[in-house]
């Protein structure tokens, strides 16, 4: 037992967490004693401090900091035997691991877990909304459900699942043995369960879970019960995780490309994650700041957002949206990357206008920072800001349009293989177009003045996030499933999943445009009689949509356990990840690849992207960055 408590792992993590809670208890009580506060022992204060402190103890106990502590203390470090690479049994996925392939799978599975939990909440929301009046839940629970639903799906599903897929395939695609900072990578991953657990635990907080929406507008949030802090603090961990991962991607992409992999030979998925990472490192600190302001207001009475004491309520929204608008591209650009890979391979044609595809990503990054106040057209902010923001918002549609038209041209005259990844990619192409169109409508200030905060917005965000992002995620998971697991998924179940999802999705979210335009506000547990018909319809459709996810889960689990073995390159793709075995060797490449051409030269006779004639052993992770050798 003592040995187990000393070695990194779950036992030590549990013990350290208890230790951390005790420490936070002591610290809080000590400070209150010094200030002679009454009561001396305050449950709320201790809980908030413990939510900030205990996760660090947990992470230390789990072992994410071990190497750094040893190194900083000048003691021999242990990682050079690479015992923390690769996974031999399912248990290894529950340990701290520095292998980007293991971390990628950890990310994807964890995110899908939160997706299923958040999805179940959506089912409860729709059950409540099936008829006007109260059915199953009271107002607190209802507001909690939609708040936690959105927060989980945004911060613990879409953002991290993209990071997870890229974690797995991006180093392979650029011919690198791992990410630039494998230990930071592990730490980034382990912050996610912390964030998600905090958010879920909020349901057990006195006063119920946080219930102010994923936007947590002040002063509603600064005055809310304790559960609100679990959003505020949870977002800090999720945000820190995404910043660290983004830095890791940037350094990996800039410094670890294989010989010959110039920027203009990178697959578009790499470009997309490069752009996303730029957005993340610049924007995410702003959401962290907005939530720290709320924390300080809530816990210490700082009055940032207390108008009666000279605070400025709109400041919250400006800081929040300065992150959260770029965040919508953080949730979309990686999907653009995935779809570019799949459309090119499955249409057997080069990506049409490759350079414009890359430039339009960068254009979206730059423009994405100039449009945040389009979420605030009715917020009462200074009127002059509205028109400039309308113009920049509308301009973003142009690079977005370039991408859509280029994908269409990629399809043209191709040889389309309509399997599951391709169906989801085409589903994305059509549904995201609708979301982009409603986006342009929303850019038009007079229209937004009417539909802002109605179900029209709910329709828009689900067309872009479900029909857009989630369809690309499904496409990507099916596409790389053989690479990640070494097995094939069931194509028939995949097609059933697609059609159920596609139809269920449109029947659920399409009518929301209509009820929104008719005047139904969002975030309400109860609504006027006139909307009853459509809402019942939407609820029925949403249950079909929910059920379709089970087909997916079944397919994934069954195929991972017992699917037919996958070959190294079942799709006849050119990019590097398909040139190694499925799953890839422990350090990705037994020989360092040399890139000799573009990634999408389908149809060019004899074209290759990378060659493997160099006999030099691939270097283990870390050695490239931390100590360059002079061999």
């Amino acid at each position, binding site marked *: 037992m003592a040995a187990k408590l000393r070695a990194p792992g779950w036992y030590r993590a549990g013990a350290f967490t208890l230790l951390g809670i005790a420490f936070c208890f002591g610290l809080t009580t000590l400070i209150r004693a010094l200030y002679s506060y009454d009561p001396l022992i305050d449950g709320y204060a201790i809980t908030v401090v413990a939510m900030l402190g205990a996760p660090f103890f947990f992470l230390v106990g789990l072992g994410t900091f071990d190497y750094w502590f040893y190194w900083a203390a000048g003691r021999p470090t242990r990682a050079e035997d690479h015992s923390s690479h690769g996974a031999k049994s399912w248990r290894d996925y529950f340990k701290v691991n520095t292998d980007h392939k293991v971390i990628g799978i950890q990310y994807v599975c964890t995110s899908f877990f939160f997706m299923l939990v958040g999805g179940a909440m959506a089912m409860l929301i729709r059950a409540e909304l099936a008829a006007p009046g109260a059915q199953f839940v009271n107002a607190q629970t209802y507001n909690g459900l939609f708040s936690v639903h959105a927060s989980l799906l945004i911060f613990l599903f879409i953002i991290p699942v993209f990071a997870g897929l890229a974690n797995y395939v991006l180093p392979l695609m650029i011919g690198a043995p791992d990410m630039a900072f494998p230990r930071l990578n592990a730490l980034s991953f382990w912050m996610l369960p912390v964030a998600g657990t905090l958010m879920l635990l909020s349901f057990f907080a006195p006063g119920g879970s946080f219930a102010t929406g994923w936007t947590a507008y002040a002063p509603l949030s600064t005055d809310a019960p304790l559960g609100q802090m679990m959003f505020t603090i949870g977002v800090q961990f999720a945000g820190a995780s995404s910043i660290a991962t983004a830095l890791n991607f940037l350094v990996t992409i800039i410094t670890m490309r294989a010989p010959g992999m110039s920027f203009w030979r990178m697959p578009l998925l790499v470009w997309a994650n490069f752009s996303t990472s730029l957005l993340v490192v610049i924007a995410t600190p702003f959401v962290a700041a907005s939530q720290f302001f709320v924390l300080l207001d809530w816990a210490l009475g700082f009055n940032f957002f207390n108008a009666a004491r000279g605070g400025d309520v709109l400041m919250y929204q400006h800081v929040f949206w300065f992150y959260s608008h770029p965040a919508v591209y953080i949730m979309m650009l990686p999907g653009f990357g995935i779809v570019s890979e799949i459309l090119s391979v499955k249409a057997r044609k080069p990506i049409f206008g490759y350079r414009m595809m890359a430039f339009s990503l960068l254009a979206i990054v730059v423009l994405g920072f100039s449009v945040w106040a389009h979420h605030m057209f009715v917020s009462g902010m200074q009127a002059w800001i509205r028109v400039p923001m309308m113009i920049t918002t509308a301009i973003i549609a142009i690079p977005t349009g370039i991408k859509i*038209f280029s994908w269409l041209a990629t399809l043209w*005259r191709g040889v389309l293989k309509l399997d599951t990844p391709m169906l989801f990619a085409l589903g994305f192409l059509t549904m995201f177009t609708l979301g982009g169109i409603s986006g342009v409508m929303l850019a038009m200030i007079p229209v937004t003045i*009417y539909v802002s905060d109605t179900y029209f917005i709910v329709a828009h965000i689900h067309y872009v996030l479900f029909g857009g992002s989630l369809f690309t995620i499904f496409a990507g998971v099916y596409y790389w499933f053989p690479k990640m697991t070494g097995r094939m998924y069931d194509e028939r179940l995949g097609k059933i999943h697609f059609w159920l999802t596609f139809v269920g999705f449109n029947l659920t979210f399409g009518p929301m445009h209509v009820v929104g335009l008719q005047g139904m506000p969002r975030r309400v547990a109860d609504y006027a009689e006139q909307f009853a018909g459509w809402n019942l319809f939407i609820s029925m459709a949403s249950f079909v949509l929910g059920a379709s996810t089970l087909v997916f889960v079944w397919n994934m689990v069954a195929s991972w356990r017992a699917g037919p073995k996958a070959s190294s390159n079942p799709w006849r793709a050119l990019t590097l990840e398909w040139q190694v075995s499925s799953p890839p060797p422990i350090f990705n490449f037994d020989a360092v690849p040399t890139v000799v051409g573009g990634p999408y030269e389908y149809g060019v006779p004899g074209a290759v992207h990378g060659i493997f004639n160099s006999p030099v052993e691939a270097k283990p992770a870390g050695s490239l960055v931390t100590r360059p050798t002079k061999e």
Partner: protein
Amino acid sequence: MVVVGVIASAIGIALGLWIDWFPAQASTQAKEIDTLWDVLIIASVPVFVLVMVVVGTAIIKFRQRPGEELKDGPPTHGNTRLEVIWTALPAIIIVGLVIYAWQVLETIDKKPSSEMVVVVTGQQFTWTFEYPQPGGKPVRTNQLYVPQGQSIEFKIKSVDVIHDFWVPAFRIKMDAVPGITGSYRITPTRTGDYAIVCAELCGLGHSTMRQTAHVLSRERFDAWMVAQQKGAAS
């Protein structure tokens, strides 16, 4: 394909214009906004149809057929002319829409020669309305009464958290923000009773924060006002 696209667009636009998307149109501002919406439908449908038709045609004409498992498409890498067109054309459409939307915004914001002020105050979970009286105590009510044909400026405040003052039939909404007085104006065009809806999450009672706006003819409104003033005085 072009024929299919044109027909589908025509049907789509016709349908989009025929469907009655909005609730009752009860202000001059509503008219402007509804027309802008129609224009957006006309601009949007062909874009969506274009994407659908190209994807549909590609699926039908270019799908992999038995025996083509190893076939590749032609290696076309791009076409500058096409790329310029699909950058410029959307840009032109968007510039047009933005200019038009800007004009609509100016029109709905325009201050008329005579205006009546109503102060709207949000609090969890109700609205109160104040009609300032020159040289007297304001008239205060829980139901909104406004005269038909009179431009009204709402001055919007909140005493606690953010709310949003919205009468769907008038189309315009604005947040009621603590510490700020927002404002917008509408001119009611139709008598009748219309729902007032709070459109910003303001706490547990948010979905119950509904009242009624009564648009009265000028005479009936004046009579109502006189009665209120008497009530306030006594």
